[in-house]
């Protein structure tokens, strides 16, 4: 069935290092992908998105890479800060629907000083 999964459930990094969070998706018809950050007790917060006709998109300290050949999505965070500690979800939007999102299980990012 359709699913979005993650390779690593927990990622620990040192403050100042770069972080890479990976995600595999299974629906080749999905046309839009998003990364959300969720802190404890809060709802998911939009970080960055990318459409299926792009390979890379950059934001402030974040970059999303999309490899459609292997159906892989990654989020790169530069100079990781303690405030980046949270659970990160990738989500995909299957084309032809009403914009409902399919989320993966999440990766917890722990930033150590």
């Amino acid at each position, binding site marked *: 069935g359709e699913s*979005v999964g993650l390779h690593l459930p927990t990622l620990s990094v040192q403050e100042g290092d770069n972080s890479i969070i990976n995600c595999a998706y299974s629906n080749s018809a999905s*046309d*839009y992908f*998003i990364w*959300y950050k969720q802190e404890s*007790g*809060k*709802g*998911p*917060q*939009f970080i960055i*998105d990318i*459409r299926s006709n792009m390979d890379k998109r950059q934001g402030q300290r974040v970059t999303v890479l999309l490899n459609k050949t292997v159906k892989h999505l990654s989020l790169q965070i530069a100079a990781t800060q303690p405030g980046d500690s949270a659970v990160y*979800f990738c*989500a995909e*939007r299957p*084309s032809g*629907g*009403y*914009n*409902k*999102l*399919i*989320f*993966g*299980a*999440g990766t917890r990012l722990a930033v150590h000083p």
Partner: protein
Amino acid sequence: GAGVSQSPRYKVAKRGQDVALRCDPISGHVSLFWYQQALGQGPEFLTYFQNEAQLDKSGLPSDRFFAERPEGSVSTLKIQRTQQEDSAVYLCASSYGTRSGETQYFGPGTRLLVL
């Protein structure tokens, strides 16, 4: 408002009770979504509204779940005869329009615990 708000933030119900969860989307947002998030899991789609019309309810787990948005703004998710497996965080999200790629903005969620 400044963002999506939900109430109550926490709800404890005895098994068999009915509950109603409220969502106030961002003013002017046409699209409204409900998701269910089990502990340690990603959110799962429940239902979608475009204005007052419920266009997709494919994610509702049973007929005990009912959602409405009668005036195209505030939405209520009702769960009848709650069961322990209904315990989860219920998230509401809204987006401005209906086009693909519209950013969905999430509320803080309502954490439901069924005893």
